[in-house]
């Protein structure tokens, strides 16, 4: 499938909004920003069908949820734990997403869990036989967790409709992937499970989108899982306050030269789809939209103690729920 002009425009709109979100949010305390990694997020989660589920990596999670329909202001309020958050402040919104948009987040800080749970979401798709598929993403550091290997092997054994996208930024906090992953490529690990492993330029949003769409078609057709290794780079810190001192400056410079936003702009301009002025306009609008959402969330009230819910431990049974 080749993206048409409208699609490229839409990818640009999402990409610059993602960039604005990551850049502006990283100024807030404790945020795990993904400046530089936006093309993987947008390419992986753009264009999922309405009934399909996904489980995005925490880095870029807000963009994924927003593309599925979640409100930007409320997503940001959820990061701040405000009363207007999607869960009234019960979960930290930078890593955990509102499930009503069929986006699963992390209910703990333990990596690897969402991809295992996403594997079960794909099992539910298979059980229903409705032709839907699931996309989940995770960092390359997570590909060293036992649960990664179990999930991919199980998905392969059961031929589950799922696409595993490794948002490979080369660093697990400060640990370099050339130290922790001796196959060099995460995609090579797919051989161990007998599934396709595909390397893609993670700073090329169109390449990521096409790779994920191809894998999704395969999954929806009942041909099983695919592992995509999308190579990118984290220009922001692991979290707000991390100054990336462990990244060599020449390495950073090389990746800045491959910036995903600049590359898409060059492509759009060269192919005559949009001129610079129009692209600047879109970027300015995205900047203003994100800034307004952050300001609105900051002005929201703090979480109310009515959300504490000491008796809210269990989901009631169906009869109780029906009569409630």
């Amino acid at each position, binding site marked *: 499938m080749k993206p048409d002009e409208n699609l490229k425009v839409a990818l640009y709109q999402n990409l610059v909004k993602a960039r604005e979100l990551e850049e502006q949010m990283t100024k807030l305390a404790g945020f795990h920003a993904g400046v530089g990694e936006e093309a993987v997020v947008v390419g992986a989660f753009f264009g999922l069908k309405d009934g399909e589920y996904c489980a995005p990596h925490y880095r870029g999670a807000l963009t994924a949820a927003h593309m599925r329909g979640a409100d930007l202001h409320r997503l940001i309020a959820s990061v701040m734990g405000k009363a207007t958050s999607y*869960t009234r402040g*019960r979960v930290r919104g930078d890593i955990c997403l*509102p499930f009503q948009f069929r986006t699963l987040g992390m209910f703990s800080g333990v990596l690897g869990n969402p991809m295992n749970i*996403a*594997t079960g979401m794909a099992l*539910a798709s298979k059980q229903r036989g409705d032709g839907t598929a699931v996309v989940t993403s995770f960092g390359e550091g997570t590909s060293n967790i036992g649960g990664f290997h179990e999930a991919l092997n199980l998905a392969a054994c059961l031929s589950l409709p799922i696409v595993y996208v490794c948002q490979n930024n080369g660093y697990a906090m400060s640990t370099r992937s050339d130290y922790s992953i001796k196959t060099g490529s995460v995609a090579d690990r797919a051989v161990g499970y007998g599934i396709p492993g595909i390397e893609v330029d993670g700073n090329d949003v169109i390449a990521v989108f096409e790779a994920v769409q191809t894998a999704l078609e395969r999954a929806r057709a009942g041909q099983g899982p695919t592992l995509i290794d999308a190579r990118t780079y984290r220009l922001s810190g692991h979290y707000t306050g991390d100054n990336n001192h462990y990244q060599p400056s020449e390495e950073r410079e090389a990746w800045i030269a491959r910036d995903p936003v600049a590359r898409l702009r060059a492509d759009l301009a060269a192919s005559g789809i949009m001129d610079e002025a129009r692209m600047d306009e879109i970027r300015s609008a995205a900047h203003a939209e994100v800034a307004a959402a952050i300001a609105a969330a900051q002005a929201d009230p703090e979480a109310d103690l009515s959300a504490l819910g000491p008796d809210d431990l*269990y989901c009631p049974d169906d009869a109780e729920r029906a009569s409630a």
Partner: protein
Amino acid sequence: MTQMTFQEAVVAAIVEEMDRDPTVFNMGQDIGPIYMGAMHSAKGLSEKYGADRIIDTPISETAMTGAGIGAAICGMRPIVQIMFAEFLGMTITPLACEASAMWYKSDGQISVPLVIRVLCGAGPHRGHAEDYIGIVSSVPGIKVVMPSCPADAKGLMTAAIRDNNPVIFFEHMGIYHGPRQEVPGEAVAIPLGKADVKREGADVTIVATGMMVQRAQRAADKLAAEGTSVEIIDPRTIVPLDIETVLASVRKTRRLVVVTESWRTGDPLSDMVSRVAEELGAEGPLPIARVALQDTARPFALPLTRASMPDLKDIIDAVHKVTKVQK
């Protein structure tokens, strides 16, 4: 009514729910037609429902549990067989870190109707006895069920499958293929969180779980001959615990003995003991004794296994200890 063993009763409950509800399916190692589950825990299921609903998996407890959670939050009602409770350690990250928290943290957007089946306890094969029930019981949001007889096993499994929360269902190997007992011929759910008074008495309350309920019954028979009247309560659901039934009994007897096959330290019923003390301790003498596993790894050789567990004499001694105290 019909006669069933514990194992037959659990499987019968699963069959009834699978017939009633197409979203129920099973996933586990060796549960398919070749092996039918460890100790025949899935006997007949694969034959009846086929590979789509009785799914054999590789040895991947973390992924099986995670996948069960994922299927559950997308509208299915999975039953995941982790074979032995000893393997629960590998389920902790998805189960205790994620599934337990989803309903609360999502503010009611996500429910997790998942059953985890595990075999536990000292049984005929002298292995895999550890239940780690203290670990899983200490995490809010997971229900923990441990039946002591076929009739309870059937009704509690029915309730566990219908429940909208993660439930760990412990099946004790020492009573798994024991005597048949009358069980309802149709699905009758026993509510989770409801204890059963297994024997009425006036002098001492024994709270016992799993295989220890039988052992407490035998002790009560001997104590009756001495003129001591024992009341036996089986909580059946360890979490949530029916504290009211326990309090009502101890309010009457003012003496409590707790008998479990769990390690003494961190036994979930030790929390029950502190609740009893908090509620009733100020009203007068309240002698309490606990009989549990010795606080070491579980030993292997049969004489060591037996000596490390509560036996009939331990239970009777504990009752004597609390009846010595004048009310």
